[in-house]
């Protein structure tokens, strides 16, 4: 194998892994901090992409529209938490059902607002040559984001007052409440934070894939599997699971076709959970 082929393979592998990190990290924060599964996560990604699209159409540069989109989706998540999620604490199944209903509504609402067609966002980046191979510069952006977002989560969870209190509220809710942590408020911020990360994920997907109301369901299966294979540790779990599953997906895609790669990812995840039911970072029994 030529060195340039090897380098190109390594880059596409890293891109696959980074993509998994980017689409999963918001879901992982909400699951890790609140033990809630947001079945509308795919639609939060989609909202992030549409917010980016709107920003670009309104004249913002892509690089500014992306963080703005994350904030918009974060604010939306905050509203959802106050109106819906808060009423369903402790009712895990019902939370899933309600967020599922929300996902159906969001898809259709965006269809009504933007139409069902696919919208493209042109990237200001082109591609560069790596020996005989052409590599898109945007994949480097994605790899950068795959490093940046987990670092951001780590900083927020360890270096802010919210992060310390939220982690306390996750580990021992009664104790945290007893020492004065408002757990309901912590949950609100956790959900908003996770939503903002989902929005950022969607914003990063926007130039990569077609921006279309149904885009969420193309990603959530992989995001869910990444999060549950990752297990309870938000950052190490997401990154480790993305590495393992992304590696498998990439290998199978490379050897066969991309959609079989996704099937392989699912199969690998299910087999992994048979061996490690609590995920890669879960406590062994």
């Amino acid at each position, binding site marked *: 194998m030529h060195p340039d082929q090897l380098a190109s393979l390594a880059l596409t592998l890293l891109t696959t892994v980074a993509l998994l990190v980017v689409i999963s990290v918001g879901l992982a924060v909400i699951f890790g901090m609140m033990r809630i*599964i947001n*079945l509308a996560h*795919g639609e939060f990604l989609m909202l992030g992409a549409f917010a980016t699209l709107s920003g670009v159409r309104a004249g913002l540069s892509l690089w500014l529209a992306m963080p703005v989109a994350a904030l918009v989706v974060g604010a939306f998540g905050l509203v959802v938490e106050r109106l*819906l999620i808060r*009423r*369903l604490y402790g*009712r*895990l*199944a*019902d939370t*899933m*059902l*309600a967020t*599922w*209903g*929300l*996902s*159906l*509504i*969001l*898809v*259709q*609402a965006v*269809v*009504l607002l933007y139409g069902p067609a696919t919208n493209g966002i042109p990237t200001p980046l082109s591609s560069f040559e790596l020996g005989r191979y052409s590599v898109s510069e945007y994949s480097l952006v994605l790899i950068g984001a795959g490093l940046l977002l987990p670092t951001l989560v780590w900083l927020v969870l360890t270096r802010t007052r919210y992060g310390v209190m939220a982690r306390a509220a996750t580990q021992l809710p009664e104790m945290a409440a007893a020492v004065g942590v408002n757990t309901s408020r912590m949950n609100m911020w956790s959900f908003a934070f996770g939503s903002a990360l989902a929005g950022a994920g969607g914003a990063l997907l926007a130039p990569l894939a077609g921006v279309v109301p149904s885009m969420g*369901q*193309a990603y*959530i*299966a*992989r995001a*869910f*599997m990444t999060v*549950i294979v990752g297990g309870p540790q938000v950052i190490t779990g997401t990154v480790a699971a993305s590495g393992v599953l992304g590696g498998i997906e990439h290998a199978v895609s490379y050897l066969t*076709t*991309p*959609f*079989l790669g*996704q*099937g392989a*990812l*699912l199969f690998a*995840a*299910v*087999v992994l*959970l*048979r*061996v490690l*039911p609590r995920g890669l970072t879960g*406590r062994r*029994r």
Partner: protein
Amino acid sequence: MRGARPLAAAVALAALVGASALLPEFQALQWTLWAIDGLLALSLTLVWGRAGIFSFGQAAFFGVGGYAYGIAAIDLIDRTGETFSAVAIAVAAAAAFAGLLGYFMFYGNVGDVYVAIITLATTLVLLTVMSSTAGPQYHVGRAQLGGYNGMTGIPPLTYGRPGQLATPLSNRQLLAMWVVVAALVALGLHALSGRPFGRVVAAMRANEERTLLLGYDVRRVKLAVFVLGGAIAGLAGAGYAAWGLFVNPVVFGLQQAALVVIWVLVGGRTSLLGAFVGAAAVQQLSASLGGGQGQATPLILGGVLIAVVLLVPSGLVPAVGGLARRLLPALRQPPAPQISPRRAAAPPGLRGGATLEAVDVAKRFGGLAAVDGVTLSFPATGVTCLIGPNGAGKSTLFALLTGRERPNAGRILLDGEDVTRASAHRRARRGLGVKLQVPSIYVDLTTLENLWLAAYAEARDPGRAAERALALLGWLGIAARAHDLAGTLSHGEQQWLEIGMALGGSPRVVLLDEPTAGMSREETARTAELVAELGRHASVVVVEHDMEFVRRLDVPVTMLHEGRVFARGSLAELRADERVLDIYLGRREHAGA
């Protein structure tokens, strides 16, 4: 009443089939689809409502059934002249797929949430995979998979013989057939809920851990239900493909998956009839409100989902009129002759004791060694008390002995056999009876049904289990409460019931965790009698805080401290030991106990 119900069902069925002959052609087609949708909903009622398995994947099995029917029918019809064999292949394919998925989930012991996510993710991956099969290279025999546009030219349900002219079913025949099939499946599931298997399924949903400790292999029960649910969904999928002559990847989409859940939610999660009512009502509603293009349908469906969850979590049908019959009344019909309140002196049905040994077992949680190299041997008959201050490792040791936790090191021997790696239900089968600290009974079942479930785990015969349950009831002295719901028993009675349940499987070793918690003095005294009687026929290990109870039993005592065996002897000997007093008894003595 039990005899009248099948009759009423048969009359209703005949009326439905008769009515189908009078329907206009268009409505016959519509009703057929409702019957098929109802079957799909029924599969989720079984899996989720009855067995408590939170599956979002019924749409996947439906789709697998649809595609399998399409492929088999296209490839086989010229050879066989009929397509019913394709339906059978579709059912088998869906069941096999459910079996594979279920094996990994249930035998991996993944949590409920994970089951929900894995099933949903599986469905969505099938959506992606099937959508990507557009090229001509994706075919099975003559059947083109067709990518996002789907598989076309699927033959309708056809009967005939090889070489003869094949005859498709007319629309009215089709409706009559699916109404009968749906009714038969529903009746079959209803009958199943009254059978021992159905009772075990209901028990598992009510209290999984207790069911496991009684000796039922919960994983296998779940897998069986999941495969059955997959087969029913596959049958519906075959019906759908044969009805529309077409199947596309939309069957694997989020909306289809959500629809199934919505039908069942609206109809009521446990109601067999509700599955059909929910499917027909929601489909009619979204058709009439959704308008021509169906633009608003997802909005309505999403709204219905959120509204039902927030406002009527038990489902519309039960909420509106109790139309849905709950599973539990059906369960209240086991053989229940008059209960004689005779008091038996000996615990019934015990077959003699066995030894239980822990050899150098250790269990760490993170950095904490909860049990730190304990070696203990309990004799084949007689009672042993385990005592120790809070945090001494009693509960962890108990969990290691019952199989709820696995030790990091050491071995556990039951009757000389190594059971260290055996799961809780295996140990129960080998003669371990367990009563947990927190009362763990089926509060929605009667006292007798609780005992029946415990006895059936070992007896495997409904009649013998009923006999045993009655005998236990007499020995425990709670015969008067036989037909009361266990949740209405007093705290002491619940503890006795659970001791009785621990004896259901004729155990040779009985582990009791705080059997007198929350009991009055008289109840404690009675419990001491029961435990002492038990000790003459089996090996009994009691974890207890109540020193009065331990003193009354007057048996060998083992004291744990900081995860190790600290002292052994009679309670009097331990009380004479200064070190013991320092750690534990002493403080209580000085406190005036």
